[in-house]
């Protein structure tokens, strides 16, 4: 190995900075999945009958399904009986305030840069922290409650607002939706819930931070956000996991409901452990995210996907009401042996519905990056419009970029546009930067950030800075 290669290897291996494991006492159930496990999860959480019923229906349906194979990703078969479906950090006692959160947990989140202390008011972000299967802390709960905003763990919402949960759970992603969403519906353990009342502009960003810690566990969280008429909310989601040799399954479901005139902005920076340079370990990320947009409402998805060994994810919008707007802005980066098959679905049902898709795929190392998107204009969607732009950037010559747009227009007045480009970081660009004094790794990071700018500028400020750093970090070791 040459010196340069060794340096690059070292850089690559230190690339993932969130690979630590926290030592907390866990309450975990036995491995494997059957009806008893589903019942056990439900009883551990003291759930009402409707929820157990929902889980059982989902589980029975799941038994009839086959794992989908249409995505352009390859991975070893997942052994669903080897997964632990419920693991929670054992609380030492009932928490009366944030100060009583297990110091180990608090440390873990501090290392991740997630402040759980209420006094960090300046950051103006309310955080719900989910550790393994359970929400451990929610900040600013009281301040939000003063405005009628409900924000906290899914479990709390089930206890305190069962009518809202029963009304909206499964209304956008039914339990029959797809293999992974159905599995999630049966075994989900926790997640975040938000409700923004009529006409309220949520005064701060709402944020959920997901952390997988325990070994051999799957994380199946469920997020439900309801924005009532004329309300407005911006929601952030971040995720990390320890560095382990085994693959871990993450199968989440996110449902968004934007009622008439409401607006939901949902931003994700996904940084699950991606596996090592040879493709050992890493998270299998199979996620179903979908929003339903009623009249004059708007749902905007922004995602920066840098982690996971496998990403299988299509945040979508059902543009149900007239004049509804759907947006999808995505940066997906695959380095080493990572594979991503990601994109969106825009289903135009209402009149004059509009959608925008901007997808930026970056492939380095042996990374495989696929954009898969569907634009569907239904018969009644008079005057519907879509614009899609899919750009791919290749770094090196061992990676791949693929684009699969599916377009279906059943209304002749609709306008659908699709643009796609593929480019490479050229020797000329790198030399130009280096001649001006910029180091090669910094030059790659700068060029990639430039490529992704159109998407990054859609992120809330705090997240944009983090995302930029993350892109540079994820590419360490990709040149040379």
């Amino acid at each position: 190995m040459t010196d340069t290669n060794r340096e690059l290897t070292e850089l690559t291996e230190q690339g993932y900075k969130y690979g630590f494991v926290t030592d907390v006492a866990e309450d975990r159930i036995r491995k494997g999945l059957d009806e008893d496990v589903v019942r056990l999860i439900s009883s551990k959480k003291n759930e009402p009958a409707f929820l157990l019923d929902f889980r059982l229906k989902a589980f029975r349906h799941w038994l009839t399904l086959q794992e989908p194979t249409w995505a352009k990703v390859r991975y070893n078969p997942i052994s669903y009986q080897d997964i632990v479906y419920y693991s929670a950090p054992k609380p030492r006692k009932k928490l009366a305030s944030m100060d009583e959160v297990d110091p180990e947990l608090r440390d873990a989140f501090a290392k991740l840069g997630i402040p759980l202390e209420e006094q960090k008011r300046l950051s103006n972000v309310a955080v719900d922290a989910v550790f393994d299967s359970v929400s451990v802390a929610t900040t600013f709960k009281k301040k939000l409650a003063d405005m009628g905003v409900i924000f906290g763990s899914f479990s709390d919402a089930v206890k305190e607002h069962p009518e809202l949960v029963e009304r909206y759970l499964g209304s956008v992603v039914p339990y029959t939706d797809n293999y992974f969403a159905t599995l999630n519906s049966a075994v989900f353990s926790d997640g975040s819930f938000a409700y923004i009342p009529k006409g309220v502009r949520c005064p701060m960003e709402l944020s959920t931070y997901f952390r997988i810690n325990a070994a051999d566990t799957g994380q199946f969280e469920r997020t439900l956000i309801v924005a009532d008429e004329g309300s407005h909310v911006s929601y952030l989601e971040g995720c990390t996991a320890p560095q382990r040799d085994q693959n871990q399954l993450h199968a989440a479901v996110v449902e968004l409901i934007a009622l008439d005139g409401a607006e939901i902005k949902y931003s994700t920076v996904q940084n699950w452990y991606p596996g090592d340079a040879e493709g050992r370990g890493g998270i299998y990320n199979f996620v179903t995210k979908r929003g339903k947009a009623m009249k004059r409402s708007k749902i905007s998805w922004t995602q920066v996907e840098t982690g996971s060994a496998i990403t299988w994810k299509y945040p979508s919008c059902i543009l149900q009401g007239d004049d509804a707007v759907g947006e999808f802005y995505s940066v997906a980066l695959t380095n080493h042996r990572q594979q991503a098959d990601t994109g969106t679905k825009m289903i135009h049902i209402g009149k004059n519905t509009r959608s925008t898709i901007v997808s930026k795929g970056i492939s380095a190392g042996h990374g495989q990056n696929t954009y898969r998107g569907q634009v569907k204009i239904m018969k009644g969607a008079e005057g519907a419009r879509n614009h899609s732009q899919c750009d791919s950037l290749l770094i090196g010559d061992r990676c791949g970029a693929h684009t699969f747009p599916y377009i279906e227009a059943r209304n002749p007045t609709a306008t659908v546009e699709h643009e796609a480009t593929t480019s490479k970081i050229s020797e000329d660009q790198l030399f130009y930067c280096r001649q001006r004094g910029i180091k090669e790794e910094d030059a790659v990071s700068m060029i990639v950030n430039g490529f992704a700018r159109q998407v990054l500028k859609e992120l809330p400020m705090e997240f944009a800075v983090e995302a930029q750093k993350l892109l540079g970090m994820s590419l360490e070791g990709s040149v040379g």
Partner: protein
Amino acid sequence: MSQGSNGTALLEVRGLTARIDDKEILKGLDLTVNPGEVHAIMGPNGSGKSTFAGVLAGRDRAQVTGGTATLDGKDLLALTPEARAVSGLFLGFQYPVEIPGVGNMYFLRTALNAQRKARGEEELDAVDFLGLAREKMKLVEMDPAFMNRGVNEGFSGGEKKRNEVLQMAVLEPRLSILDEIDSGLDIDALRVVAKGVEALRSPHRSTILVTHYQRLLEYIVPDRIHVMAAGRIVLSGGRELALELEKKGYAWVES
């Protein structure tokens, strides 16, 4: 031998040879540039002018097979491209590349601060940098609208060259090598480029103009002119050499 009067040349090239694939392009090139001097290297297409400029800046398209090149006594050929830039070498590109989405001013500030940091100098903050950039943009008569556009993104040929001169003016290199900076420029742009070069002229800095035409030399008066042919400098002289070349054509030196 045109050794500097005080014996401390800024750039000293001796017997430089380089090849691209199997073809020898530079065949033993000698050049001495003293502080404060402006040199012009002229020659027909294919004589190796651009390869020479690239080799000095560390472009790996050509492989150096022999000879030496020092900047301020430092072995240039042992340095990475970025280290050469930090040492004060600037290459004005014949075809400046586009870097979409990277703001022009962001790029320039990153470059300036990377160089300053490597030299152990304090980095400029956004405000100080903006002041400096504005002043230099005035010098090259550049519309402030270019500040936030992507690096060379959608710039015309002339705008790209003007941007090169702006970068040079901000980075204040010890040695500027301008490769065909005049190609594709109208009279107006030529005048601006010349103004930028003249503004940098000082007893400490030097410039090498690589050009095919003597037109540029009507705007920038060089101290020395060299004629390259077949990978070597075959003739050196003063201003009058350019006029003679203009009259007789390159066939005169190639024969």
